């Protein structure tokens, strides 16, 4: 290993930087893997981001990658890069728990499509990450594994449900991770942990082998420490898969190639009226930071257009109705057989679906068609929507209110309901040093546009360079 690179610096490289270093032979895949494993062993006791660490498997794969590099069999920018997976991605021969006692010792006999694609790209799997139980509800206090903590302040929640993915990246335990997103589960932990996460268009990334929460709202997607890294990971996992009934047979562009196009003349829609003031409204610090982010985009040449936020606000009602009905339908049999294996939070949320009727569910699906049309009609006037990712900074575990999510606007739900691609990028910090995220959503299958706006913003600001003190 080069003497100029210390272990912690290695752990905080971006994928793009690490990949370039591997090609320069500044270090090897074994060095990267050992640096991550060492850091996890030293620090994850505070954060609980990992449920299962696959250290020996990772070392074997790292040595293989090292040999492949030596014999010039390079596979691409993810070759030799250590990553980790939310523990609802099925992994052949590796326990997949969904952070639940229900699946505490379940070992799948096949890999999710996204996992196979990352394997083929040459990544090195470090392990499986903590999450909200079955990607639902909130941090689990009565699950067999401890709740994941926020690296910026362990007294605070990391956001969920891909909580381990957000925390592990912010803590420098891995270079990239996969999350899943049904109502904001990639974007919220990305915002709360100060990293980047993209929920692609519905159908862009296969969900085959990803344990479902709500089939018609579930999305699989990448999380990383930079926009460029998200583009690289998305490139590897995107594409049609006949094994996923919702998979779209749409051409996959070169996401990295379009990053540097800038935002000059781009029309940025802000659906503020009738949404930001819903119930308790947006936290004042969050809105101030968000408005400063809009100024940055304006200075980069974007045009800001205020929009009616009412359909976005209503979208949460349809999203939540569909979600609880589909979640109950999926879990009904297991719940009736072993109710006490579910944690109390997820039990309460899942059961809400048992008390809604088939007509209620179809009403929500009909409303989905209407809202989808109303929201997408805005694309005649704007190119992207920009809103805060979360309505407030991460609360403390102690002060957590289970009803909080219904008291403030949900800025993430509408993009699950409409299936639009949406990315969260760090846009500032509160006076308490907690991260805030900026969300950019684009037209269907225009992830490149969302990535381009996020990249332009990221490169113009210093937020992605900050690291938590652990």
């Amino acid at each position: 290993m080069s003497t100029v690179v210390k272990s912690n610096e290695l752990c905080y490289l971006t994928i793009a930087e690490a990949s370039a270093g591997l090609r320069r032979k500044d270090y090897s895949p074994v060095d990267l893997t050992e640096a991550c494993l060492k850091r996890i062993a030293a620090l994850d006791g505070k954060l609980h981001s990992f449920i299962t660490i696959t250290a020996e498997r990772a070392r074997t794969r790292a040595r293989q990658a090292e040999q492949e590099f030596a014999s010039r069999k390079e596979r691409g920018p993810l070759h030799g890069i250590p990553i980790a997976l939310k523990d609802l991605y099925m992994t052949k021969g590796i326990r997949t728990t969904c952070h639940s006692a229900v699946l505490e010792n379940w070992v799948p006999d096949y890999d999710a499509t996204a996992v196979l694609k990352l394997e083929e790209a040459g990544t090195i799997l470090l392990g499986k990450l903590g999450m909200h139980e079955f990607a639902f509800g909130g941090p689990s206090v009565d699950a067999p594994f401890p709740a994941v903590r926020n690296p910026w302040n362990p007294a605070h929640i990391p956001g969920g449900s891909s909580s381990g993915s957000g925390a592990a990246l912010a803590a420098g335990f891995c270079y990239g991770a996969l999350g899943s997103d049904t109502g904001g589960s990639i974007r919220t932990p990305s915002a709360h942990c100060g990293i980047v996460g993209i929920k692609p268009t519905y159908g862009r990334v296969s969900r085959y082998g990803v344990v479902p929460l709500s089939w018609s709202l579930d999305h699989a997607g990448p999380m990383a420490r930079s926009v460029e890294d998200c583009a690289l990971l998305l490139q590897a996992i995107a594409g049609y898969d006949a094994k996923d009934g919702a998979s779209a047979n749409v051409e996959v562009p070169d996401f990295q190639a379009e990053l540097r196009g800038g935002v000059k003349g781009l029309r940025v829609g802000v659906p503020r009226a009738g949404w930001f003031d819903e119930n308790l409204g947006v936290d004042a610090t969050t809105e101030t930071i968000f408005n400063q982010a809009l100024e940055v985009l304006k200075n980069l040449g974007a045009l800001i257009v205020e929009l009616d936020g009412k359909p976005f606000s209503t979208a949460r009602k349809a999203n939540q109705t569909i979600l609880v009905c589909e979640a109950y339908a999926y879990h009904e049999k297991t719940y009736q057989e072993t109710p006490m294996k579910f944690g109390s939070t997820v039990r309460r949320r899942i059961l809400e679906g048992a008390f809604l009727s088939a007509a209620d569910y179809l009403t929500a699906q009909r409303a989905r068609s209407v809202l989808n049309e109303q929201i997408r009609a805005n694309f005649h006037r704007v190119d992207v929507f920009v809103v805060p990712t979360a309505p407030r900074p991460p609360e403390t575990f102690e002060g957590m209110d289970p009803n909080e999510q219904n008291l403030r606007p949900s800025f993430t739900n509408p993009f699950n309901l409409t299936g639009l691609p949406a990315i969260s990028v760090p846009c500032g910090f509160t006076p308490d040093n907690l991260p805030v995220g900026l969300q950019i959503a684009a037209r269907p299958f225009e992830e490149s546009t969302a990535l381009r706006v996020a990249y332009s913003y990221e490169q113009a600001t210093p937020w992605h360079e900050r690291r938590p003190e652990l």
Partner: protein
Amino acid sequence: MAKELTIEDLRFMADRAGLTLSDDDLQRLLPGVNRSRQQVAALRAIIAPADEPAGVFIASDGDRK
């Protein structure tokens, strides 16, 4: 506005769904269920008779796997 359910309503519905829930369970569930029902009532107000559900059955899907 949807009618507010009571614990008794919820107990009847739970029985019908084949669920055995304690009074404490039902008490914890009640606010969420009533909120869900109000949400559905609000959604009903935005749809017109001609609006079809978003979910579509595609007959050829059986050949995909």
